[in-house]
């Protein structure tokens, strides 16, 4: 998996923050965008995807496609909330597995 993992965890209360940068192995097409949106909707944490100077909520499949993220570029997954670590892990895996 071509991810560079730098989770920054702050456990002030039960809320944690995580992030991970993934170098895309393929263009971020419609199909992985759909997978990301459906996966993101299963977590309670607030999740963001950052690409270049744009940040979107990954539950919006059209917004994810609109990032125009291409092969070799970096997408950063950020999450804050009780299941942030799992959310980042799950979304990063989808990004890293995109074909």
């Amino acid at each position: 998996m071509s991810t560079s993992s730098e989770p920054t965890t702050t456990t002030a209360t039960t809320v944690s923050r995580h992030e991970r940068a993934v170098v895309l192995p393929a263009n971020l097409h419609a199909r992985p965008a759909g997978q990301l949106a459906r996966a993101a909707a299963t977590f309670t944490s607030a999740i963001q995807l950052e690409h270049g100077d744009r940040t979107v909520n990954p539950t919006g499949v059209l917004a994810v496609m609109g990032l125009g993220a291409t092969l070799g570029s970096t997408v950063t997954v950020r999450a804050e909330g009780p299941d942030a670590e799992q959310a980042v892990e799950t979304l990063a895996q989808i990004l890293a597995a995109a074909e």
Partner: protein
Amino acid sequence: MSASVGIVLVSHSAELAAGLRLLVEQIGSDTVPLATAGGTDDGRIGTSYDLVLAAIRSVDRGQGVVVLPDLGSSVLTARTVLEDHPHPDALIVDAPFVEGAVAAVVTAASGADLKTVADAAKEARHVHKL
């Protein structure tokens, strides 16, 4: 997981509706109740009252139905059907056809309620492609 909101694609063209269906099944989900009402009863370009009514009934799992018309008489036909057969949980949503369908199906697949699915389709108008 409980049943999800149903989606109906109303188009002047059976091929357009069928093609959009294939697309949203790949991007979103093939488990969301989805029906198409494309073309006239005899397969020409146009819309069919009976096909729209049958489509709405076929996807109703008790969680509500979002009806997405492509344009023009699709809108009018869908409206007439729902006026003649009032259905409190069926909404005609003003949205771009392709983008609205993709957003609605992805949102419905996550178990969202009727309003959330309808809003996702409406908001598709404001998401930039570029």
